[in-house]
């Protein structure tokens, strides 16, 4: 259109053409960033070649020359295997931690809105105290003060109700006897059957209009299947007991695992509690009033009406907390819990090249984070309100 105006030249000179200027600016930025990266990379190459440090991942094949407590990992096995074990340990503490922190955080979050003054105040005190402490202080406290100093020696171990053994060598809890794979299959089968029963109940309830009681039926199915399989396949629960300078039977949790898990759960649950509280407050008031008008009980109101809507709001923030918990599990290295970071730190201390080892570690964390956020996003989309 410019050409139709009088006195304006047909062609815009290139130094005034906005498109050219935009690209010129971007290329300039690219050159500057590229130069910075190249400078860093070049420095790295020069410094590394001067001190003769390898830059590849060959160190993964060297023997590890350290052992991992609570694991049959042998020191002659390659570093590669140690990294895998560390990865599994990270996943272990992160998985259990996320489950426990979610449950505890949700309970505390609900308690913060309780009508009972004392419950409300206790929950608020818990959140305000924990949230404003550094995680590392909590972790050091759990490790140095609680586990290593307050827990008794194995000879004087606490055995509450004779089902647990608590000592500074770790916590032993009852565990089932038999193959783990089998049990996982049984649980999966029970879950599928329970879902099926629930689905059938809801369908028949939709047809007949009678109350479905779907969760009740599903829970009973689940318990029944587990119980039948338990008896049929000959599982039995084994109680731990002290024997000599250790425990036998049950499942023994490493003291460092216990300390890290408790610290992570306490810290993360205080953040989750705030998220849950905010999300419950974000549910419109009319929803609760409608539930009251339908004469739902307090529990039904929470479970059927409020919480599903609250979790829709909370999901992205919860996902962030899960990611934080996973990344914070790297602090296990400060109390010798043999997770990924600790393995990397020991390997570097034993003379492996630092930059490749830590870069590998960072990439693994990045991968865990990406997978976690994919899962969270999946659920987020499932839960999201479908509008128009």
């Amino acid at each position, binding site marked *: 259109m410019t050409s139709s105006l009088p006195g304006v030249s047909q062609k815009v000179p290139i130094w005034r053409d906005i498109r050219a200027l935009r690209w010129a600016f971007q290329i300039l930025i690219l050159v500057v960033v590229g130069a910075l990266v190249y400078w*860093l990379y070049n420095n790295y190459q020069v410094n590394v070649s001067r001190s003769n440090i390898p830059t590849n991942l060959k160190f993964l094949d060297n023997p590890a020359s350290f052992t991992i407590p609570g694991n049959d990992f042998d020191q002659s096995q390659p570093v590669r295997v140690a990294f895998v074990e560390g990865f599994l340990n990270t996943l272990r503490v992160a998985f259990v931690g996320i489950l426990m922190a979610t449950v505890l955080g949700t309970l505390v979050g609900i308690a913060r809105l309780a009508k009972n003054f*004392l419950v409300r105040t206790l929950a608020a005190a818990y959140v305000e105290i924990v949230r*404003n*402490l550094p995680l590392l*202080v909590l972790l050091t406290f759990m490790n140095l003060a609680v586990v290593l100093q307050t827990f008794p020696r194995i000879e004087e171990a606490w055995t509450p109700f004779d089902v647990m053994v608590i000592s500074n060598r770790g916590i032993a809890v009852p565990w089932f006897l038999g193959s783990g794979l089998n049990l996982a299959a049984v649980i999966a089968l029970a879950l599928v059957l329970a879902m099926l029963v629930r689905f059938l109940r809801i369908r028949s309830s939709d047809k007949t209009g009678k109350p479905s009681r779907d969760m009740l039926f599903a829970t009973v199915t689940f318990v029944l299947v587990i119980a039948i399989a338990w008896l049929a396949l000959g599982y039995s629960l084994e109680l731990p007991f002290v024997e000599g300078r250790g425990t036998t039977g049950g499942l023994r949790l490493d003291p460092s695992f216990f300390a890290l898990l408790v610290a992570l759960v306490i810290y993360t649950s205080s953040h989750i509690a705030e998220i849950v509280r905010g999300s419950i407050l974000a549910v419109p008031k009319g929803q609760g009033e409608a539930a009251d008008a339908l004469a739902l009980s307090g529990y039904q109101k929470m479970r059927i009406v409020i919480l599903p809507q609250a979790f829709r709001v909370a999901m992205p923030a919860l996902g962030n907390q899960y990611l934080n918990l996973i990344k914070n599990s790297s602090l296990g290295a400060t109390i010798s819990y043999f997770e990924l970071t600790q393995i990397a730190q020991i390997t570097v201390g034993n003379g492996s090249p630092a930059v490749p080892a830590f870069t590998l570690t960072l990439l693994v964390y990045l991968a865990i984070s990406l997978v976690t956020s994919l899962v969270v996003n999946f659920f987020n989309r499932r839960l999201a309100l479908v509008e128009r």
Partner: protein
Amino acid sequence: MVWLKRNLFRSPTDGIVTLVAGSLAIYLIYQAAQFVFVTGRWEIIEVNLKLLLVGRFPEEQMWVLGASVLAIAFWAGLVARSLRRQAPAKQKPLRVFSELAGRFGLVFLLAVLLILLSGDPSNWLLAGGVIAAILLGRVVGSVRERVGLLRRLPRQLWVLPWTLLPLGFIYYTLSLSALEEWGGFLINFYIAILAIALCFPLGVLLALGRRSSFPIVRLITTTYIELIRGAPLFVLLLLAGVALEFFVPPDLAPDQIFRAVTVFTLFTAAYLAEIVRGGLQSIPKGQTEAGKALGLSTLKVTFLITLPQALRNVIPAQIGQFISLFKDTTLAGAALSVLEILNIGTAITKQDDFLGQGLIYESLAFVGFLFWVGSYVMSRESQRLEKRLGVGLR
């Protein structure tokens, strides 16, 4: 009585819950009180107080530190007074006092506790000096409103030159003593404040880059932000501890504190960028369009219209990020062996006089309390600021 019935004994179940929760609360308070006043052996803190707070800071230069604290108190009072938009409504002195006690009571309590622990009465003088400096700052701050010529000056321009005073003192302190002699809580503060000051412009630039219409800039900033956010801070610190010297020329070989500041800055900038981006997204499109309609350039629209509103909208999130940075400075001790307060706190239990006496409870309680007061007061003030700026109300 009505309150009791309504809040504690609504129904029989509620009554049982109250009894259980009440006994739990009484038990916890009893245990805590017994630990603080009876069984706790606080000599370990009394003996090591200086080590915990300022590390091996040279004794003969402590007065410079005191002077810096006074300068900062003066500056804080001045800024608080100068940035006030309108005079608050007249209130009864009692009301004002109770409000101040609610806001700064904890800090006051902490100060009294520290002075009592130090066992040196001359520290009362310092505390009095701090209060006097704040009051003096308020008086000087009010000058701008009184003098007609100064009133035309924008608030920011009036405050800025005064900032040179505390900065000058800090610079003088740094020039007097080597940074390696700093330690304890002082180093936590130093790292946190330096990292906050440095990461702020970087974070804003990254946020603007991620929102810009230039695809290449967007790609670069997004990659940086997502890479950093996927990495644990502790591993980054470890990496910096053993590998930063490989990436810079050998004659620049940085010390541990500098490494910590670098990592905290780069790390927090990525998180801050996401917060600021959220703020930018919350600004209605009409704001930009109105700016464009007035003929402002894109740069002017950003820096005069959208960015100020965006930054105001996310003040609580920003301060939350800075609080977690402040708490995370403890990681510098674990990863880089910087002699920060947690590191010293665990080390003093291994001194000859205290070894094997199980004093880790006392030491960690003290360290935790310092951090707790700092973070709690900061988060309270951020909520107040949020309310005063009327976020979400305009």
